[in-house]
């Protein structure tokens, strides 16, 4: 991806520079759109706030000055300033990740609550990360195993099956597969819940039930603690199983296929022939030497794969009502809560860029050509 050669330091600086440019570009774009189109929304919210303040003053029997209150509220929303100023304000806020500066409509409630946009998007982030990364880890493990097996037996029926599964799942909308899973395992066979939105309230209830045990401390009641952890895990899995299996089901084929291709490329290299000629067991050749040689492209592919899959996964959340970013999107879009929409979008962009940049670093650490300061391919 990067065209720069040189030392690790220079490459690291280059990718950080790239990340900063990307984030700046994104925040400028998002802020610009929000300021250009969100004026009515902001004004509506400001008006609501002015009314609220006036009402509370009237209730207290205090005198109020409408223009003064309006001035104050408009000041807070930046409405009394020109549009350019607001763009700068939001660019600054997004860039510094101050999502609290984005408004949230008081009429809209989100699955995990939250009084401002920052709270809403931060609370939505956690379930998404838990679900998505658990799925990704499982997908990568399955993919590595199946991919290596397929590469070893290239051209076999097994290999062809992997290719077909990969092509098929590349054209499946993940969220649609989710709907089918929900139909099969929640509606037809009532094994899993129809909606996962209650996962946090179920966990909270569990926490209250075990309050006495948890108060004792782990050392005094290890069995009780373990029991609590066991049931918590069970609760998580009960609500998370269907979305998790959906993501895995749609992604594992593509992964296995990509890994297969990378491994087949590595297998044609001379050092593999040498290792085999030396009589090193095939398993060791594959999982030690080939794996090491294949890991840099694997990391690059995983960056692209993760980024591509996260989009599908957040839409899939909606189907299961998993209380993460996707479901928050659904609510914000349906109720027109633009502040949350904008904050959420930027947070997601941020997340993407961080993932890519991190994997770029890992790539550098793994690739001996970069590590020792040689040229990168």
């Amino acid at each position, binding site marked *: 991806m990067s065209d720069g050669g040189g030392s690790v330091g220079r490459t690291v600086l280059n990718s950080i520079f790239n*990340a900063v440019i990307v984030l700046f570009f994104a925040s400028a774009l998002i802020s610009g759109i929000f300021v250009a189109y969100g004026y009515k929304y902001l004004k509506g919210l400001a008006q609501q706030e002015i009314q609220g303040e006036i009402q509370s003053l009237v209730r207290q029997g205090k005198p109020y000055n409408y223009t003064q209150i309006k001035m104050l509220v408009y000041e807070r929303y930046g409405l009394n300033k020109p549009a350019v100023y607001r763009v700068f304000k939001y660019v600054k806020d997004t860039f510094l990740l101050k999502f609290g500066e984005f408004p949230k409509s008081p009429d809209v409630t989100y699955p995990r609550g939250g009084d401002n946009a920052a709270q809403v998007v931060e609370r939505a982030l956690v379930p998404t990360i838990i679900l998505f990364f658990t799925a990704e880890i499982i997908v990568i493990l399955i993919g590595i195993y199946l991919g290596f097996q397929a590469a070893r037996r290239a051209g076999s029926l097994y290999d062809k099956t992997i290719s077909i599964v990969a092509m098929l799942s590349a054209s499946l*909308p993940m969220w649609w597969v989710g709907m089918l899973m929900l139909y099969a395992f929640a509606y*037809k066979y009532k094994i899993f819940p129809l909606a996962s939105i209650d996962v946090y309230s179920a966990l909270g209830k569990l926490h209250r039930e075990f309050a006495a045990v948890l108060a004792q401390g782990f050392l005094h009641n290890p069995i009780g603690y373990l029991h609590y952890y066991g049931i918590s895990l069970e609760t998580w899995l009960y609500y998370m199983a269907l979305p998790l299996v959906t993501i895995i089901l749609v992604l594992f084929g593509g992964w296995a296929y990509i890994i297969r291709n990378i491994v087949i490329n590595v297998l044609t290299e001379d050092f593999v022939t040498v290792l085999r000629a030396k009589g090193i067991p095939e398993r060791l050749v594959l999982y030690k030497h080939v794996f090491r040689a294949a890991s840099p492209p694997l990391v690059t592919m995983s960056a692209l794969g993760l980024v591509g899959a996260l*989009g599908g996964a957040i839409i899939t959340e909606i189907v299961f009502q998993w209380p993460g970013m996707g479901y928050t999107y659904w609510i914000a*879009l349906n109720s027109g809560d633009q502040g949350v929409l904008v904050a959420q979008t930027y947070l997601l962009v941020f997340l993407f*860029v961080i993932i890519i940049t991190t994997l770029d670093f890992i790539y550098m650490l793994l690739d001996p050509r970069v590590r020792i300061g040689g040229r990168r391919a």
Partner: protein
Amino acid sequence: MSEKKDKKSSVSSSITESYGGASASLRRSLASFIEFWNVFKRSAAGMTGLILIIILVIIAIAFPVIGNYGDVKNWNNATYIAEKGLPALAPPEWINLISSKKWPVTKFVTPKEITLVNLKNIRTNTTVALELLKYTNPQLYKYLSAYVKSIPKSQWENNPILKNMRKGLSQTYGDRFEVVVFDIKYDYKADKVPTDIVIRWNQKPLNSLLTQAGILVIFVRPDGLAVPLAPLNYNIVTKLSQSILKNGTCGSYCAFLFNLNNYFKILNAGRSVDAWSYYGLAIYGKTQISKFEEFRLSNFVNQLSKETRINFKLSILRPFMEPFNLTYSPGTFYRFGKALFKKMNPQMLAGKGPSLKGTYHILVIELAAYNQTKGTPSQPPVTIKRAIFQGAYGILGTDRISASSPYGRDLWQGVLYGTRWALIVGLMASTISTLIGVIYGVISGYYGGAIDAVLSRLAQVIYSLPVLPLLILLSYYVGRSIWNVIVLLIVFGWVGIVFTVRSMALQLRENLYVEAARAVGVDHGRIIFRYIFPQVLPYTFASIALGVPGAILTEAGLSFLGLGDPNIVTWGKILHDAQAGGAVLSGAWWWVVPPGLAIAIVGLSFVLFGYALDTILNPRLRR
């Protein structure tokens, strides 16, 4: 080789040089195409993809012929949908091939199929008047009947007391009554009961001539039992319906119909205190309607599930309870709609037991009273437009336009039509963005240096931006049009191919013929478009094909989020409606499976086709 050919042709046609050159290049590209085709047709996957794509294109183009354009044009038109009257959430008709319990197929009964059984005009003579009085004023009737018995029948018409009574009743109810029976037949042979029965009827507004009018609905089962959907005695109603169906007249039970008072009250008196009329109004529609109203069995059943109006409920449920000595227990939910189609058994009110197959009759009895001094009526005041016995429908079943709506749309039309927009979105977005990306990459690679550095950096920035969140935000703001979506897909989609093409261009510009061209002084634009671009072009085709599924999936994802074009039926939109309408929670798999499957098929076709192209055309993969 091609150089030689070029020379030959230029020699042979020296006069029309330009024409000859064109035909030669045409021949050359034809030759290379045939060469490509010979390799391609050996790829089973590629051919499968190509055949599927051809079928899809045919479907997309021929939709006006094979589909119903009106259905998709009026996808959001509530009036059109109601006029069409398709059932909501109806499974496809072929469900009977896989389901052990057979579904009834939706049956539309047109006015032509509805027979007018009995047309009877009755003048208010004393007999009728006395019958009327029996129901309108039982106390007076009780008092009168003793008196009436004392005088011979021949003197009734001239008896001053009875004359006065008749006059009084005529003034209230009119002096001529009309009874028209519409007989709607339904052959029922399924195991599952119809999901709903809808009768669309219209009643002329009341005026000085037509003083009273209304309808009364009686269900007649194949076993002869008649179920009145009104507080009537079912024994009498059974005999009445037998008489109507056998003899074409209400015969000796005609008088019974003069228990009209309640219906007239129901229809005309508005929300009276009468317990029965409350239900009647809900069931039989409003007073003085001029547009078409609907009688709906499901509404009727909903009414029954309420706690109040026990008397009325009892009178409806009695036919199913009396034979088994069952008693009414408040709070129980009776599956009346199901019980109508079950063989007589003690648990039929719980909707259990085998279904009763055979011909059902629904008798819609129109009752009207005229004031004959104001003229003569021309047509019956009630007309029936159609009756629908709802069950399985069509090739792909139906959806539901909203949670409370009784109507659905033909999903087959939507899924069929979706092909068109999937192909337009996929091909347009992929082709344009790939071409932009290829040109960008070629320019960047060809020029190198500072231009390359700037262009590469810009491409990298856009490449690092996550597409979906930005697409969501932008499509939320820029207005819901499919063209906006396509433009956005292009804006964020062109960059993927740039890096590969750039590295290809970097290699190509080192080629001798490019250097030679540059040395001769050919300008850069010509070199790029005549020498480098054609070399990259084959790779472009594969990229276009492989880019289609991504564009379709993204568009479907946006539509699923509700950000698609509201006026265009796409697969993503159908799935959005399915998600918003709780298709999964209603078990309507036919609403969910086909659109997603269609997306998958289109995607798979292009992936198969694209991979086959890629292995043949992409120089990197040719070893």
